[in-house]
């Protein structure tokens, strides 16, 4: 819509929406509780669950095909003049509501920095750490096929 007009602000919003979408309802609720109270919010579109077709391309640039459907819950909340959206995997309505609320708060220039520091930054760090642990575990079992080829 109109509030994300420049490409950089759009990219920033994509980043924080991705972090919020990956966080659990509990993490979001705990971090939100630590914040000063947000102004009154209005639910524009209550959380609703549906299916989204995930499409892929072989090799990243081949012909597109339908990979399969996934369950997605979406929600839209208005906080003052800003509309927060959330699209999350699964059917957790409380999680979608919290993510949309935080997205709305993050668009507000006054609250942006506070919410970013208290909620998004720690969640992003935790998610990054979890990914790194996973990657290390996977790397430990890595087989070097080139080595095997020369051993034969």
């Amino acid at each position, binding site marked *: 819509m109109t509030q994300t007009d420049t490409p950089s602000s759009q990219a920033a919003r994509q980043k924080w929406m991705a972090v919020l979408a990956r966080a659990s309802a509990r993490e979001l609720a705990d971090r939100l509780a630590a914040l000063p109270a947000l102004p009154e919010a209005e639910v*524009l*579109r209550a959380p609703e669950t549906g299916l989204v077709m995930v499409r892929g391309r072989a090799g990243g640039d081949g012909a597109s095909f339908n990979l399969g459907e996934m369950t997605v819950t979406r929600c839209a909340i208005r906080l003052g003049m800003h509309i927060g959206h959330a699209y999350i995997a699964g059917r957790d309505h409380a999680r979608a509501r919290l993510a949309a609320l935080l997205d709305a708060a993050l668009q507000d220039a006054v609250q942006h920095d506070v919410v970013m520091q208290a909620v998004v930054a720690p969640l992003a760090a935790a998610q990054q750490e979890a990914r790194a642990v996973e990657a290390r575990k996977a790397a430990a079992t890595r087989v070097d096929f080139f080595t095997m080829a020369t051993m034969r």
Partner: protein
Amino acid sequence: MTRLTPGFADPVLDAQASFRAILEAISRPGRIRTIDARITPPAPLCSAAGAALLSLADGDTPLWLDAGDRVGEWLRFHCGAPITPDIGRARFVVACGAAPSLDALDIGTDEDPQLGTTLILQVAALVSGDGWRLMGPGIQLENRLRVVGAPTDFVAAWVRNQALFPRGIDVLLCAGDSIAALPRSVMIAEG
């Protein structure tokens, strides 16, 4: 800046209730029904017209409307319906101000008469008991309906619309939270 208002509080039950009201209005042409939708669409759209659009319009039904950008944005957000500037291609035409000529709207084809446009006409008030005499399917003898704020040449245009049957335009008349329907099968005579 945007100031969107919510749609139905309970999307499933409220849409079913207003669909039911529209269905009953269409099956008893000229009988006035109330849609208790508990919504506040942006001005100038009235709540009955808003509820009808939320129940009927979706991504497959292009809309044409004269109600301004805020209403367009509200309908795009809640229905996902595309807004078209071409009145002849719209499935639903929403007229809050001067009614468009019925001749400009899509009347469907003999093979697909269901593609005919539905005109959602917002009027000042609907009064039963006097005014137009309605006859046709769904009415035992005759129904009287006075439409305050209807276009002056509406009855003449309706006679032309009726001659096209089974093709034609269906009309939903909305005023506040009341709704009455004029399906293409109904005959209208001046009272």
